[in-house]
C-alpha cells in the first residue's frame, strides 16, 4: 500500500510523513486482527495509546499563556576531573568558581575514589559538610569515558598516554536545596547527565530537576533486600552488595535510592555510596557500595544481590531491630514519612537511637489524601506542595502488591473531594504534579473510558487546562478516552489525534468497531464526538467504501447512538453515502443499497436515500425497497424476496404511468435528442431529394 492510498497521508494533513510511514505497520496490525476484529477486539484493548512527542509538544503549546512551565531547579557547583591530551596525571581540568575551589574539588574526588572499575559509567554520591558559614553539600559524581562522538565529548580525549581516561564529572548541590525538593539520587544524576561542562564556563549551573516517570521495577523487586541493607547501615558498618555485576549502573543507583528511601532523608547528608568499588581498594570512604568480591576484614556487612538471605544483626543492635520492625510494619507508608525527615542525621549509634525514639507516626496514603484535600480547600500552597511530594514518594515506594482496594479508596477520596478540579491559585508545575500523582493513585493504568467518565463527572465538565495536559501524557486503553481528552479544548486536535493513532498502530477500523461495540455504553454527550471521529478515521482506510458497506453504512450504529433522533442521524448518514456513492443515488444504486443483507434500513437511512435519489419521483419505489429491506433485516429474508417478486408482477404499472414517473430532466433530454434526430433526418432527406 502506498501513502497515496491514505487520504490524510496524501495531503489532507501536510507534515505527517512519519506518521504515514508508521501507518503501514498499523495496517499490518490491522490485518492481523482483521478476521472478526469487530467481535474479538475488547473495548479495553491491550494495545494502549500514548501521545507521540510531536503531539505532546503540540498540546503543550496549547497551554494557556498564564500557565508557564516553571520546573524545580537547584544550583550545582561542578568540576571535571581527568587528563588533558598531553598530560599523564589526573587533575581537576576545569571547575566552577563558586564556594568550592579547584583544591576542594580535588579533595572531594580523591577522598571518595572507589578504585579500578571494570565498566563505565559508574556513579558515586557523597557528602561535604558545611563549615565557616557555608552550607552542607551533596555531591553526585559521574565516572565515565569521553564519548567517542566529538560533539558529545565536551572536548575531552578518550585515550591519553595509551590508556582510556576515566573522567569524573562532579556536581555539588547544597543539601538544603535537595532536601526541600526531596530530590532522589537517580533524579539528580539524570538531571546533570547532559551537562558536559565545556571549557570556558566557570559559573555554577542551574540544573532543572527531572523527576522519574514512576516507580521502577527495582523498587518492587528488591524492596526486601533494601530493607535489610537499610537496617545494616544503621549498625554503622559499611555495606557491600555482591553479585550485581550484570545489573546496570543506573539500576544500582536506583537501588541505593531505594535503600535511602527507607531511612530518613536527613541521613543522605552523611551518605557516601557508589555503584562500583574495587574490592582491593584500601580505606574506602564509602558507606554503601557494590563490588565483585567479599572483604575479609570483618568491618563490612555483605549482602547478595540475587540471593536474599535472612538478616543477621549484631547482638547490640536493639535500636536497629526496633527500626526494622517499624519499617516492615509500616510498609509502603514508611518512605513518604521518612522523606519528610530532612534534618541531618549521622550514621552513629546516638543518632540511630534518636531516630528510633522519634519514628514518624504511621500516616497512610488515605490520611495524606485527606490532608491534601483540606490544604486544597484552604489554598495552602506550601501544604499542598508538601502533600503532593509525600504522595509521590508513597507512589515511588509502592510495589506491585498494592491492591485494588487501596486504589478504590484513593479514587473515592479524590472524586469525593473534587481534588481534580482546577486550582487557579497554584502554579502550573505544582498543579501538574498534583494531578499526576492523584491520577496515578486513583486510577488503573492505562486509563479507561470508565475512568475518564468518573473524572468528568467529578469535574462537572471535560478536563481542561493543566489536568488535560497531564492526562494526555498518560496511556489510554482505547481511543475513546484519548479522543475525549484531546477534544476537551477547542483546537485543531483531529489531525494530531489521527497521527497518534497511526503512530500507535491502530487500524482504521478499530475505533469504529469500538464505537459499534460500546454504542449503548457511551454516554450520550460523548456520542457525537466519538462517532464523528471514528467515522472520519475509517474514511482514511484504503478500502473505506468496502468497510462502510460491511458495516451497513453505520446506519444501525447511528440508530443505537441516537435512537429516534433523525436530526443527528441524517447528516451523518448522508455524509457516509456521499462518500461512497457521490452526490446523487441512481435507481440501480438504490436497488443495490437496499438489496444488501448487511444493511439495517433505519428510518433515517430511508429519508436520506430519498433526499439523495436522482429522481424526486422515486419515493414510492424507495419506500417499497426499504420496506422489503426491513423485512429482510428482521430475519425474513426469503419472505421478502418472494414478496418483492410478487409485488413486481402484481403492481407492474401501465406504460403511461411508468412514463409519468420518469424524471423531468430525462424527458426533456429525450425530447431534445428526438428533435435533433428529426432535424438531421430532415436534412439528409432534403439532400438526397436534391
Amino acid at each position, binding site marked *: 500500500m502506498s501513502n497515496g492510498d491514505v487520504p490524510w497521508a496524501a495531503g489532507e494533513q501536510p507534515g505527517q510523513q512519519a506518521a504515514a510511514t508508521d501507518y503501514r505497520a498499523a495496517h499490518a496490525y490491522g490485518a492481523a486482527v482483521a478476521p472478526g476484529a469487530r467481535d474479538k477486539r475488547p473495548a479495553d484493548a491491550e494495545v494502549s495509546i500514548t501521545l507521540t512527542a510531536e503531539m505532546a509538544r503540540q498540546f503543550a503549546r496549547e497551554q494557556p499563556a498564564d500557565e508557564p512551565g516553571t520546573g524545580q531547579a537547584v544550583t550545582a557547583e561542578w568540576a571535571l576531573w581527568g587528563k588533558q591530551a598531553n598530560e599523564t596525571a589526573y587533575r581537576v581540568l576545569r571547575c566552577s568558581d563558586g564556594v568550592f575551589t579547584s583544591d576542594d574539588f580535588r579533595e572531594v574526588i580523591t577522598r571518595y575514589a572507589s578504585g579500578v572499575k571494570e565498566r563505565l559509567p559508574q556513579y558515586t554520591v557523597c557528602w561535604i559538610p558545611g563549615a565557616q558559614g*557555608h552550607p552542607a553539600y551533596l555531591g553526585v559524581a559521574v565516572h565515565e569515558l569521553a564519548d567517542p562522538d566529538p560533539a558529545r565529548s565536551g572536548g575531552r580525549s578518550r585515550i591519553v598516554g*595509551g590508556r582510556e581516561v576515566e573522567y569524573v564529572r562532579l556536581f555539588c548541590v547544597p543539601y538544603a536545596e535537595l532536601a526541600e525538593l526531596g530530590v532522589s539520587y537517580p533524579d539528580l544524576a539524570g538531571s546533570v547527565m547532559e551537562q558536559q561542562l565545556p571549557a570556558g564556563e566557570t559559573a555554577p549551573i542551574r540544573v532543572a530537576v527531572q523527576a522519574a516517570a514512576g516507580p521502577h521495577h527495582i523498587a518492587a523487586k528488591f524492596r526486601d533486600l533494601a530493607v535489610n541493607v537499610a537496617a545494616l547501615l544503621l549498625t554503622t558498618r559499611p555495606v557491600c552488595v555482591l553479585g550485581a555485576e550484570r545489573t546496570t549502573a543506573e539500576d544500582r543507583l536506583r537501588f541505593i535510592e531505594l535503600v535511602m528511601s527507607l531511612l530518613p532523608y536527613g541521613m543522605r547528608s552523611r551518605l557516601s555510596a557508589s555503584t562500583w568499588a574495587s574490592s582491593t581498594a*584500601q580505606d574506602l570512604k564509602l558507606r554503601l557500595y557494590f563490588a565483585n568480591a567479599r572483604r575479609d576484614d570483618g568491618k563490612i556487612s555483605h549482602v547478595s544481590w540475587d540471593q536474599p538471605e535472612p538478616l543477621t544483626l549484631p547482638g547490640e543492635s536493639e535500636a536497629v531491630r526496633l527500626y526494622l520492625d517499624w519499617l516492615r510494619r509500616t510498609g509502603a507508608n514508611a518512605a513518604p514519612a521518612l522523606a519528610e525527615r530532612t534534618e541531618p542525621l549521622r550514621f552513629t549509634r546516638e543518632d540511630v537511637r534518636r531516630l528510633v525514639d522519634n519514628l514518624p507516626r504511621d500516616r497512610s496514603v488515605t490520611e495524606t489524601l485527606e490532608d491534601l484535600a483540606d490544604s486544597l480547600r484552604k489554598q495552602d500552597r506550601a501544604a499542598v506542595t508538601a502533600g503532593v511530594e509525600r504522595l509521590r514518594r508513597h507512589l515511588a515506594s509502592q510495589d506491585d502488591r498494592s491492591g485494588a482496594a487501596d486504589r478504590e479508596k484513593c479514587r473515592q477520596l479524590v472524586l469525593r473531594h473534587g481534588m481534580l478540579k482546577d486550582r487557579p491559585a497554584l502554579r502550573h508545575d505544582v498543579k501538574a504534579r498534583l494531578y499526576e500523582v492523584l491520577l496515578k493513585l486513583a486510577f488503573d493504568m492505562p486509563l479507561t473510558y470508565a475512568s475518564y467518565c468518573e473524572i468528568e463527572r467529578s469535574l462537572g465538565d471535560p478536563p481542561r487546562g493543566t489536568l488535560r495536559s497531564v492526562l494526555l501524557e498518560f496511556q489510554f486503553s482505547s481511543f475513546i478516552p484519548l479522543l475525549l481528552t484531546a477534544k476537551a479544548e477547542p483546537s485543531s486536535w483531529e489531525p494530531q489525534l489521527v497521527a497518534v493513532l497511526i503512530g500507535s498502530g491502530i487500524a482504521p477500523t478499530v475505533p469504529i468497531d469500538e464505537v459499534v461495540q460500546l454504542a449503548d455504553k457511551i454516554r450520550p454527550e460523548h456520542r457525537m464526538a466519538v462517532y464523528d471521529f471514528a467515522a472520519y478515521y475509517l474514511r482514511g482506510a484504503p478500502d473505506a467504501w468496502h468497510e462502510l458497506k460491511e458495516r451497513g453504512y453505520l446506519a444501525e450504529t447511528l440508530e443505537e447512538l441516537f435512537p429516534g433522533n433523525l436530526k443527528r442521524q441524517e447528516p451523518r448518514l448522508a455524509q457516509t453515502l456521499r462518500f461512497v456513492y457521490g452526490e446523487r443515488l441512481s435507481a440501480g444504486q438504490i436497488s443495490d443499497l437496499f438489496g444488501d443483507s448487511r444493511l439495517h434500513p433505519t428510518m433515517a437511512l430511508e429519508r436520506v436515500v430519498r433526499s439523495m435519489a436522482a429522481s424526486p419521483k422515486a419515493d414510492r419505489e424507495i419506500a417499497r425497497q426499504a420496506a422489503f429491506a426491513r423485512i429482510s433485516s428482521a430475519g425474513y429474508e426469503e419472505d421478502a424476496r418472494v414478496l418483492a417478486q410478487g409485488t413486481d408482477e402484481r403492481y407492474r404499472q401501465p406504460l403511461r404511468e411508468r412514463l409519468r414517473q420518469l424524471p423531468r430532466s430525462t424527458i426533456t433530454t429525450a425530447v431534445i435528442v428526438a428533435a435533433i434526430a428529426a432535424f438531421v433526418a430532415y436534412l439528409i432527406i432534403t439532400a438526397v431529394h436534391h
Partner: protein
Amino acid sequence: MPARPQGSQPPPPQGPPGITMLGAQQTGKTTFLAALQIALLRKPDLGWSLKGDNPGSTQALINFVNDMTDNHVFPRPTAAIENYRWSLEGEFPGKGPLKWHRWWFRRQNLLSSIGLDLVDAPGESADGRQLFGRAISERFVDNLVRSSGIVVFYDPVSEFDRGDAFRHTFGVLAQMRSLAERRGRLPHYVAVCITKFDEIRVFESAYKLKMLEIGPEAEEFPQVPEGDAEAFFGRLVRLSRSDNAALILPMLHQTFRKERVRFFVTSAIGFYLNPSLAVFDPDDYQNHIPAADPEPARIRGAIYPINVIEPILWLGENVARTARP
C-alpha cells in the same frame, strides 16, 4: 570551602608490613603486578606459585591474567590505593628437615609460603609538585613507612619524555624519613626496577652499552645481568629529560642501606615471540602496540615477563624474615 568530612585523618593501615610500589604514573607498576602470576607460570622450575589470600585479591589476580592473556590489554590505571594480598607458595623436594624414615634419616619436602602484601597507588599520589589528594597521599606515605619492602619503578621511556622520576621519589622519601621513628637510614629493602626493557629505545641502549646476555630460557631472550643493572641505571638516568634524574641514585643510597637496595632490569610483558620461530628475533621483538585513538594500547602476543618474579621473591623473602619474631 565546606569542611572536610569528619574522621579524615587516615587510621594506620592494618595487616602485616608489606611491599609498596613507588613510581610515577605510567611507569608500569600495575602491569608489573599483573604479570607476576604469568611470570611464575612461565618458570615452573622455580617451584613457586601465587595465590590470593582474600576474595578481592584473588579476583584481581584472575582479572589481571584474563586482561593480559585473553584480551591482550594492559590493566586499567590505578585510581585509589589498592592492596593486593597474595602469597607465594613453594614446595621444594628434599629441602625440608631431616626425619627418621624406615631405617635411615631422610629430608622431607620443604613447604614454604611468603605473604605478599602489595600496595599499589596512583602515580600521582607520589608527585611532589602537584598534590593529588591529601588523604590519599598521606595514606600512601604511611604505607611506605610501614612496609618492609619497596619496589621503585624507573621507566626510562617516560623519563626521557617527561623527566619526573626524581619528583615522584624525592618528596615521598623525604616524608618517609620525617615519619620514621629511628634515625639513620631507613631499614626497608628496595628493589629498583628499570621497566619496559622490551621497548626499542631501552633495549637498544642496553645493546649499545654491551650489557646484554642471552637468558637461560629456550626462547633465548636477552637480558641485562643483575650485576650490570645498577650500571645500566646509572647510564640511563643521563638520558633523562630532567637533570635531576641523576640525583635518584644518591638519594636512594642516602635514604636506604646500600646492601638493601638491588637493581633489576625488567619487562612485564616481555619481548614479542613469533610463534613460528619460537626464539627471540632481534628484528621483530616489540610486544607493545601503541594506542591509536579510540583504541588503547595493546599487547601484541604472548607474555614472557622478564625479571618480574626476582625482585618480588627477593623482597618477599626478606620481608618474611623481618616479620618473623
